[in-house]
């Protein structure tokens, strides 16, 4: 039994590695077409992400929102609920957390209350499409995506009018009070407390929830065979609703951490699409918390490494989105590719 589990884990890891390798090969073709040396490009990408201590810290900082969002999406995807609204949930969490922090001012509980409220906001924003799915049977892909637009336009309006900072030129919120700012853990870097919370609290908690709890078992049962799950007495609607709401909670938290750890103000440009990146990461990590954690570092490295690649080799920043797009296609096809390779005898397990 033990052997069998490790074998399937090994196979999963291999699948993800094959997807990554193929995505990097396809991207190489793009580099060649645009006159850049792909080996050099990947070298600069690595250097840009891990070249020295401060760059490595920056990659961890970049990883934090991606990790939080994708851990949540892993929960949701495990039971085949396709939440593509993490971007909106992130913005709503960030906005509500910011409003709470600015209104409370400097009190000992400001940070805790803001964090609690940003989580609740993310949950509520995910809860609406969750209820629409479970009670009205409306496809969550459509509703969660549309709600991204509602959230982002609403936040842009809030920071342009009712919650606009009086002392700045651009539409943005007032600066967070000192009590709401996440402390820096390593002097003269941007490594804030949120990074540590994501790594040492969020990963273990989601791991326990998914791998060691009855809820995790229910998620898996609903995702793999809803009919059997129903027969086994699992409340499918409740499980799906919970899964979507949990993913919203983590996205909301990711949003507020970006404000209180990095930006210190709510801005319309808070996220460069972490909500969508989270989808790629959750799929690449095959909804396994450990797989998701490793995939988050990988994607964060591509994000930060791409700055170096664009600086040195004059390649457009769009390379980040391109790699993610290609990657997701190969992740999806990886089971078929794997079966093909096994049939041809290239891979023997």
């Amino acid at each position, binding site marked *: 039994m033990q052997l069998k589990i490790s074998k399937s884990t090994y196979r999963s890891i291999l699948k993800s590695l094959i997807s990554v390798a193929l995505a990097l090969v396809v991207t190489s073709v*793009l580099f060649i077409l*645009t006159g850049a040396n792909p080996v050099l490009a990947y070298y600069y990408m690595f250097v840009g992400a891990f070249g020295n201590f401060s760059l490595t810290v920056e990659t961890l900082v970049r990883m934090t929102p991606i990790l939080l969002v994708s851990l949540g999406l892993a929960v949701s995807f495990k039971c085949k609920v*396709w939440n*593509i609204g993490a971007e909106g949930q992130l913005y709503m969490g960030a906005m509500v957390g910011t409003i709470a922090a600015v209104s409370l001012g400097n009190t000992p509980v400001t940070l805790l209350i803001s964090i609690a409220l940003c989580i609740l906001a993310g949950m509520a924003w995910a809860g609406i499409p969750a209820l*629409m799915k479970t009670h*009205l*049977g*409306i*496809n969550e*892909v*459509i*509703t969660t*995506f*549309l*709600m*991204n*637009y*509602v959230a982002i*336009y*609403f936040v*842009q*309006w809030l920071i*342009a*009018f009712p919650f606009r900072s009086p002392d700045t030129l651009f539409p943005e919120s007032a600066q967070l009070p000192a009590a709401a700012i996440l402390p820096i853990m390593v002097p003269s870097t941007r490594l804030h407390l949120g990074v540590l919370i994501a790594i040492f609290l969020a990963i273990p908690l989601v791991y326990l929830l998914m791998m060691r709890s009855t809820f995790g078992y229910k998620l898996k049962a609903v995702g793999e065979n809803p009919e059997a799950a129903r027969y086994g007495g699992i409340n499918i609607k409740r499980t799906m609703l919970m899964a979507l709401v949990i993913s919203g909670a983590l996205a909301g938290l990711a949003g507020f951490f970006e404000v209180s750890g990095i930006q210190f103000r709510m801005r319309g440009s808070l996220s460069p699409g972490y909500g*969508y990146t989270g*989808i*790629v990461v959750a*799929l690449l990590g095959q909804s396994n918390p450990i797989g998701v954690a490793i995939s988050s570092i990988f994607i964060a490295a591509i994000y930060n490494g791409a700055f170096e690649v664009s600086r040195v080799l004059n390649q*457009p*920043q*769009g*390379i*980040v*989105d*391109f*790699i*993610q*797009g*290609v990657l*997701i*296609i190969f992740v*999806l*096809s990886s089971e*078929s590719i794997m079966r093909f390779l096994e049939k041809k005898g290239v891979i023997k397990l």
Partner: protein
Amino acid sequence: MIEMALVVGLLAITLRTASPLLLASLGETIAERGGILNLGIEGAMLIGAFSGFLGAYFTGSLVVGFITAIIGGILTVLLFGILVIKVNLDQVVSGLAINLLATGLSLYFFRIAFSQGNFPYLGQLIDPMPIPGLSGIPIIGDILFNQTIFVYIGLLSVPLIYWILFKTSFGLRLRSIGEDPFVASYLGINVERTRFISLIVEGIFVGMAGGLLTISMFNTFDTRIVAARGFVAVSIVILGRWNPWGALTGSLLFGFTQALSLWIGTFLVGPAAPSISQLLSLLPYVVTLLALVVGGRKVRGPASLGSPFAKE
């Protein structure tokens, strides 16, 4: 009389803002009737918008832009088709993959084609083409017959697609695949080929829907240009009960909401005006969500919609 002119203007704008939704939802109706749920429509529209822009920009010809938009749409939907029909992947996740890929491709190649800080725009747009004789009719002429080619194509396609779906043997084959591909296959219908044909038709419509954004509406390209219109179109297909006439009604409803929010914005005065008119940009999305709550509950589409079909 001034009020009348304003209302006519509002209805004419309704048709213009409805046209991308109408074209996209007609295309999606065809695909979904064959059992394929294409959520990659958002990405296909984006590629249509991008390829249409590139074609028009580099040749200076809007006709070329129109054609390249359609080609872009067809290629994107075909890639989706290969993933879900040939490789038999999950339709929902493949759709998401297409959307992410489309964003990445267009962003990357936009920056390859135009350097940073360069904001290219088209010198001309596909303008309304008044139909001789008909455009002179009071009121109706201004609303219906003084529109762009995209509006005419969309309106004429409604009865055409209805006829194809419900009065031709191709439509019958497609709908029977949509209900049960296994039975259809057993009866000798070529499921793969029929579905690919339906997807090519979808690609043509979605390519036009995307292309009109750049070559007829905004004259420039941005990766956010589609702004969920693809997903609104999928919602319209549900609300329109997978029927082209329903797609027309739904598109007009959403076109009207969008036109209305623009229209109200122009009348606002006073210090709160900019605030309210910015808030109105939410309206089309909120209305779509509310419409789904009211009209989208527990509707039954084609029975095999979204489920894989593999001959083992």
